[in-house]
């Protein structure tokens, strides 16, 4: 990674810290949570990791076959990490481990969707080869 790319990566991390820090400050000081700042802090963090790894804020750029292999494997691992995280967020935010006591149905649907997304995608994609 050359010097310019390192500086840009550092800037994106500073942007992330600023937005996340501001959100945290507002939450602690005024007990208010701003969805916009949460969203944009995650976006800045994604830009930071994409710059670190690929040298491109959206993860694009020229890639050879090892890069594509890394992308494919990371997508699979990332999917299962997201599945676990969504389940954790559901149970932590609802403060219960019992399904009957959960009221956040949209989040339950999201957790459910994480179970069926890959099997359905694999089923549809396999039709291309069968």
């Amino acid at each position: 990674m050359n010097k310019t790319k390192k500086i840009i990566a550092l800037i994106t991390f500073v942007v992330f810290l600023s937005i996340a820090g501001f959100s945290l400050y507002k939450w602690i000081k005024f007990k208010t949570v701003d969805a916009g700042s949460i969203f944009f802090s995650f976006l800045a963090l994604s830009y930071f990791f994409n710059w670190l790894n690929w040298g491109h804020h959206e993860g694009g750029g020229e890639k050879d076959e090892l890069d594509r292999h890394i992308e494919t494997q990371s997508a699979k691992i990332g999917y299962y990490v997201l599945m676990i995280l969504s389940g954790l967020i559901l149970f932590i935010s609802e403060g219960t481990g019992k399904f009957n006591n959960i009221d956040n149905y949209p989040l339950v649907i999201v957790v459910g969707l994480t179970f069926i997304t890959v099997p359905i995608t694999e089923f549809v994609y396999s039709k291309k080869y069968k």
Partner: protein
Amino acid sequence: MENRIKEYREKSGLSQGKLAEKCNVSRQTINAIENNKYDPSLQLAFDIARTLKVTMEELFISEKGGK
């Protein structure tokens, strides 16, 4: 799958970077293949064999019994 890319590359007097350049991949890709961390695609395997002027059988060692 094990391979003898490093051995043939050094015999040819090529660096990892030079071999990578001739095969249109990054040096990291050649390094990962040499260290058996990544199995190359069929196309890349042919490109490497052609560049090193050896056959695929000479270059790659199948885990199912010898060459």
